[in-house]
């Protein structure tokens, strides 16, 4: 009977972008049990609902996370608009979708870089982030901010993009596709990468469903859960299919994210071809009265904002359930049976965004 020892992982660790603590119970270098512990960046943002009016709260919703900030603000304003019954102009929904997909591209490139870095492959890390600069430059040129866009508001968006700029963005993306191909080729075909990722951290399909896995963590195990299929924003008029892999291991999750980047570029191209002319915002009066669950697809999975208002300028409740929060139980399950040396790679493969998870 081998002895069990407990090794603490985190909160400071070179692979983790944000602090997360796991107590790993080991028997001879194999993990048999995991106890997670979060709460290092809890800011209590949801309590600020009492102090800020619902129009100003967009800025707080944006700052829940730095990587997935645009889609948080999009989900929030979508929820408010559904409660108040506002018909947002179509051009605004297309612009929001374009910016949302740009956000997804930048997040996946960031993750690919971090993932390569966790395996020690630093030149791929730097290459991925060099490609990410093109995306951030486009975001800055159209919205004014590289990381926090600040461009969503209740009733539409605050800035418009000229048709010439849209064409330029599309040409830039198409030009970048060649380099993206080279980069994803390294992840998907290189033997040393495959050796480290195949068969490590397997999450079976039934487990993924019952434990509540969302996003690429679920799609890597064969579940086609992608909230973009419900067609919010302008996605109802765009053809796209979710990317699904069936193996359930780290390689599958990595492949899902790598292939999703090309899907995003396709969606942006379809949006740019179909975007109608028109106004980008509308006048909003009154206050929301009612409750609604607003769901969108963040780069890490399904995010759901629960908004409840009672007719006053301040909302009663705004609750954010982020994808990383619900991916923690699957993480606990899939770490069992993994070797200690593979733990950082497996933890990073679910794309932990702890700033989101704890708000």
């Amino acid at each position, binding site marked *: 009977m081998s002895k069990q020892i407990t090794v603490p992982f985190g909160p400071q660790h070179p692979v983790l972008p944000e602090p997360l603590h796991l107590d790993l119970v080991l028997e001879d270098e194999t993990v048999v049990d995991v*106890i997670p*512990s*979060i*709460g290092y960046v*809890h800011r*209590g943002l*949801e*309590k600020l609902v*009492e102090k800020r009016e619902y129009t100003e709260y967009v800025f707080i919703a944006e700052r829940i996370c730095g990587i997935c900030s645009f889609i948080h603000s999009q989900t929030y304003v979508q929820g408010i608009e*559904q409660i108040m019954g506002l018909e947002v102009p179509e051009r605004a929904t297309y612009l929001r979708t374009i910016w949302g997909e740009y956000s997804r591209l930048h997040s996946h490139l960031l993750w690919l870089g971090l993932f390569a870095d966790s395996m020690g492959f630093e030149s791929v890390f730097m290459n991925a982030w060099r490609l990410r600069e093109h995306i951030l430059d486009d975001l800055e040129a159209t919205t004014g901010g590289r990381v926090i866009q600040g461009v969503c508001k209740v009733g539409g968006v605050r800035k418009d993009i000229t048709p010439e700029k849209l064409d330029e963005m599309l040409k830039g993306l198409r030009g970048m596709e060649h380099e993206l191909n080279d980069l994803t080729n390294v992840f998907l075909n290189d033997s040393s990468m495959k050796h480290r990722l195949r068969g490590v951290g397997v999450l079976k399909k039934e487990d993924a*469903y*019952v*434990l*509540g896995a969302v996003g690429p963590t679920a799609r890597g195990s064969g579940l086609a859960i992608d*909230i973009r*299929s*419900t067609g*919010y924003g302008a996605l109802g008029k765009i053809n796209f299919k979710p990317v699904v892999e069936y193996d359930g291991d780290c390689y599958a999750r990595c492949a899902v994210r790598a292939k999703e980047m090309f899907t995003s570029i396709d969606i942006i191209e379809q949006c740019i071809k179909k975007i109608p002319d028109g106004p980008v915002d509308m006048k909003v009066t009154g206050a929301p009265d009612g*409750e*609604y*669950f607003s769901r969108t697809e963040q780069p890490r999975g*399904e995010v*759901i904002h*629960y908004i*409840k208002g009672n007719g006053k300028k301040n909302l*009663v*409740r705004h*609750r954010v*359930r982020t994808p990383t*929060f*619900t991916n*923690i*139980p*699957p993480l606990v*399950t899939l770490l069992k049976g993994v070797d200690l040396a593979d733990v950082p790679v497996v933890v990073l493969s679910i794309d932990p965004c702890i700033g989101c998870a*704890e708000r």
Partner: protein
Amino acid sequence: MAAQVITPIGVGDVVSKAGQAKKDGYRLVQIGCTKIGDDFEIIYVYDKDFTLLSYRITVKEDVVIPSISSEYFGAFVYENEIHDLYGLHVSGINIDFKGTFYKTAIKHPFNVTITKEGDSCQNK
């Protein structure tokens, strides 16, 4: 978007509804808590094929809420959060952090509202 209906149920039905949802193939989406006056509303949201099924219970502070982690293993994150932020007691969680999930300076922070005087930058 289709209309979203939230069905009110009693505290005693929470576990049986969770079991029914699991048998029907729903996955757990979230458990959220709201404080309205002196009451707490807890909403259980399940999803299957992008259709939401939601239940709401309204309780006072001293009621003990049964945990659904026997049906859904992943519910422990939500129930520990409800205990830490609001001070409600949930019994029978499979991984019970006993109040140490979020370590905050003030216990049960979402229950209290504190206004600081003269904190704004501009001497307001």
